[in-house]
Structures are given as structure tokens and as C-alpha cells.
């Protein structure tokens, strides 16, 4: 398994700083939850890891090599991505959509389809195999996209707000799947707005929570750090309550006075 490292990374666009000297690593088998207000630079950080956006300075290293220098198929074997918005304009079936994620493998179409069937079964989405993705709901489409991520068989997985547009049940299911992949040894960097969903991963105490604001890393704490509620409150500029339910802690924004 490989390591993902952002070293003193800055990204500037038209004189605007999107990322400012960010240094962060996602070690082998680690799960890092990335939080921050809208516009903090979270998605930009993920895109630099995929060589979709070039750094202005600093570097992104994947398995010790600069991500920009990696051959595309080799890079796809190291790192995969579930984007925030799943494009569904082509009326391909769920199976074909997942089979497309096997591009990095030089294999026959039949082999790709078999692997796609296995991936769909793994995320309990076999029922969408023959349905067109254009006809699926947001949650169903997200599950098919997740199957694509499974089918790609990369070592490091990037998630960009994967629970967006899902109902609470679907959110929990998705984070459970994410936890399964983590326990199987994948390294994961996941953007989320709801830190409480991390409980669904199964071993939340091992999760690192990283805060990003205005392109800068402002904290990097374990999920069970006592100061996390305060750090989250500072990050979003709100007051955050920490409630205890059994052995778990839940973070709830304190309601603002309306008067």
C-alpha cells in the first residue's frame, strides 16, 4: 500500500490563493477526514492529488513519486476518486458505467464486465446493472459510482462529500461501505461536512480529522481528541456542542439566537 503526501503545497489562480503551503500525509491504511467551510480549498486539494490541478509551488507525492510524472494507468492503480457530482448524461447501463472504471487494466471487455458485476454485488447494487444511469436516483447513482471505485482497485481512495444528496439511511450505508474498504487496508482521504457520520466507519477513534480554512491547514487531530469540538467550532465560526451517546461523541452546532 502507498502513501499520499502533500508537501508545502500552494495553488494560486489569477492571484487568488486556493491552497497555502499545505503539508499533509495520508499514510498506509489511514483514514483522514477533511473538513472545512465552503471555498476552503478541499476539492482543490483532492484535484492536486489526481494531477487534475497543478500546484503553483510544492509537490504531491504518490508512493514517493511526483503525481504529475506518473503514467496515467499507473496513477489510476494508486489513486481513485469519487467526485462530488456524478455526471449522468450518457444513457449507459450501471454495469457499463462500472466496467469503464476498469480502464487501467489491459483486459478483455468480458473480464471488465465480470469485475464490474463483482463490484456491483459488493456494494449491493447488482439490481442497477442493467438500468441506465440516467434513470437512477441520486442515491442509486452514487452507489453505482461507488462500485466503480471498487472496480478500479486503487490503493488510495479520495471521496469528495460522498454523502451529499443522500437520505440519512443511504448516508449511513455509504459510510459503512467506506469503512469496509478502509478495514481492508485502503488509505482514504474523505471530504465531509458531517463529522458524525464517521461513527459509521466502525473504528472512528483511528480516524484523523483535518481542518482546512482559506487554503490553510488549521488542525490535524484524532477523532477522539478532547479539543475536537472546539476546533470544529473555530473552523466553521460557530459554537459546537459535544453530546455523548453511549461511548460515542456527537458534534452538534449550537443554535444561534434569532432575536
Amino acid at each position: 500500500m502507498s502513501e499520499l503526501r502533500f508537501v508545502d503545497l500552494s495553488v494560486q489562480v489569477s492571484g487568488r490563493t486556493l491552497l497555502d503551503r499545505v503539508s499533509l500525509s495520508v499514510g498506509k491504511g489511514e483514514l483522514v477526514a477533511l473538513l472545512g467551510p465552503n471555498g476552503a480549498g478541499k476539492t482543490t486539494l483532492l484535484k492536486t492529488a489526481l494531477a487534475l490541478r497543478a500546484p503553483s509551488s510544492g509537490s504531491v507525492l504518490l508512493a514517493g513519486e511526483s503525481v504529475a510524472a506518473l503514467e496515467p494507468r499507473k496513477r489510476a492503480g494508486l489513486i481513485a476518486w469519487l467526485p462530488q457530482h456524478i455526471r449522468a448524461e450518457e444513457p449507459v447501463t450501471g454495469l457499463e458505467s462500472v466496467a469503464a472504471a476498469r480502464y487501467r487494466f489491459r483486459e478483455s471487455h468480458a473480464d471488465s464486465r465480470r469485475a464490474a458485476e463483482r463490484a456491483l454485488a459488493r456494494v449491493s447494487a447488482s439490481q442497477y446493472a442493467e438500468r441506465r444511469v440516467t434513470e437512477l436516483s441520486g442515491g442509486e447513482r452514487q452507489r453505482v459510482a461507488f462500485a466503480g471505485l471498487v472496480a478500479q482497485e486503487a490503493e488510495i481512495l479520495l471521496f469528495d462529500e460522498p454523502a451529499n444528496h443522500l437520505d440519512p439511511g443511504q448516508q449511513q450505508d455509504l459510510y459503512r461501505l467506506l469503512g469496509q474498504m478502509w478495514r481492508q487496508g485502503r488509505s482514504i482521504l474523505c471530504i465531509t461536512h458531517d463529522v458524525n457520520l464517521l461513527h459509521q466507519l466502525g473504528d472512528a477513534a483511528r480516524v484523523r480529522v483535518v481542518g482546512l480554512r482559506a487554503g490553510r491547514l488549521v488542525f490535524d487531530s484524532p477523532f477522539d481528541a478532547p479539543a475536537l469540538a472546539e476546533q470544529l467550532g473555530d473552523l466553521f465560526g460557530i459554537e459546537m456542542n459535544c453530546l455523548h451517546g453511549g461511548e460515542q461523541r456527537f458534534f452538534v452546532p449550537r443554535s444561534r439566537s434569532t432575536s
Partner: protein
Amino acid sequence: MRSRALLLILGCALLLLGAVLVGPRLEGAQGQFIVWQLRVPRVLVGMGVGATLALVGAVFQALFQNPLATSDTVGTTAGATVGALFAFALDSSRTVQGLPLVTVCAFAGALAGSLLVASFASARRVHSSDILLAGIAVTLASSALASGIQYVSDSRALFAATQWSLGQLPQVGYRGVLLLAPLCTLSCGLLLLLTRPLQVFALGEDLAHSRGVNVPRLRLFALGLGSLGVAACVAWCGPIAFVGLIVPHLVRRLLGASYRTLLPMSLCVGGALLVTCDAFARLIVPGRELPVGIVTAALGAPTLVFLVARGRR
């Protein structure tokens, strides 16, 4: 799905056969001559041109992630028009190495227009929408150039240019087939080899990049190969509207959007459609041939409206 595809192939084969046989009753040596020396090569040219335009349309729609993208979008047709106008303004009766000057100039213009856009597309960090804008810019610049040439041309050249711009399958015999076939075969054959990366690309440009597709290389190859085939077609026949736009949508609606089906079936349906339209153009006005471009445009516009209306339901 497979049986539907087979039915469609059978239908295309029947249309091609019908296009050779349909028309006034032919007998004797003269009939043999008309069928084998005029109609068959014309049908072969129509097949090649229609297949290439339709396949390139399907490829460009994936490449630009835009359902309205065709070879017209990337400056190929506009470049060809400038070349053809230039030739008409000079002297359209001239030949170069036995080829009509109009064909040679239109081919050179088409390649020049595409090359400008392709050189922009080869840049590492441009998005498909940027290339589309570059294509529109080349098209507008070509239109300005074409207007300038038209302004200084005489009425004879203008009339010839107008006829050329309607799009017509020419009576070029087997020599025309032999000149067109290598370029169309090369273009279409190599584009079909890009089926797998195009399928991944069609699901999203950034996602394709993350899945291991070399996006700048794919864009450059697809754009270059597509433009080569279309340049050859436009040079011979003039701009033929709607085939590249309509056929991929039609196939997608009938057989789905798997590129393993979409690309080869666009090839088949495009060839059959253009040949059928040409047969129609030969017969619709007794004693006179309409340019096939008029028929494709007349059929294409309502078909597009129908497809859009069906798609919204």
C-alpha cells in the same frame, strides 16, 4: 439489444441495395454502364462519406461532452469552405495532379482549420469546453475570411461556391472511391480503436483522467483522425449537414450509449442514411437532381426536434 442491432444492420444493407436499384428502368449495355460505372461508385462514395461523418459526429460528441458537437464545431467545415471559395475565385477548372483544384484547396483548408484547434487541444490543461470555444473562434475567423473572398469574387465563382456549399455526392467514378477510401478507412479504423477510452471519457473528463485515460493524447488523436476523414469528405462533397449530428443520437436512442455499439452502428447507419438521402435527391424532382445536402437538412431538422422532444419525456 443484439437482435435490434442485427435488424438495424439488415435494414442498412437493404437501403444500400435499394439505392443502387431504385430509379428509372435500365436495360442493356447502357443500363449496365449506369449501374456499374455511375450508381455503384456513387453509392460507395456516399457510404464512405456518410459513415465517416456519422462516426466522427459520435466521437466528437463524446470528446466535447456536448450533444450538438460535430465536425462543423471544430472548424473543419469552415476551413474547407474558405479553401473551396479560394479555388473558385482563382479558377475552379484547374487541376492539381489530376485532382480538381476545389477539392485540393478544400482539403487543405479543412486540415488547416482543424490543425489550429488540434494544436490548442494538445495543451495539457485545457478543458473540452475551451476546445469547443477555440473551434467556434476558428469557424468565425474562417467565416470572416470567406466573406472577404466572396466580396472580391465574380458572380460565376459565387454561383459555383453556392452550389458547392449545398453539399452533393459527385459523379467521381471508381477513381474518386479509391482516393476517398484510404483516408476514410484510416480515419474510421483508427477512431474505432479508441472506443474504450472514449467510453470512459464520455462519463466525465476529470473522471476519465482519474481512471487512467491520457486525456490530452486521446483528444489530439480523436480530433486529428476525425478531422482527416471529414476533411476528405468535405473536400469531395462540400458540407453535408446533419448526418454527423443526427445519426449518433438516433443510434443512442435505439441501442443505448455503449460505445462498443454506438460507434460501429453510427458508421453503418450514417452510410445507409446518406446513400438513401442521395437516392431520394435523385428521384424527388423528375429529370433533375437535388443536392443531397438539401435532403439531409430537410430530414435532419425535424428529426432533431423529434429526438429532443422524445428525450424530454
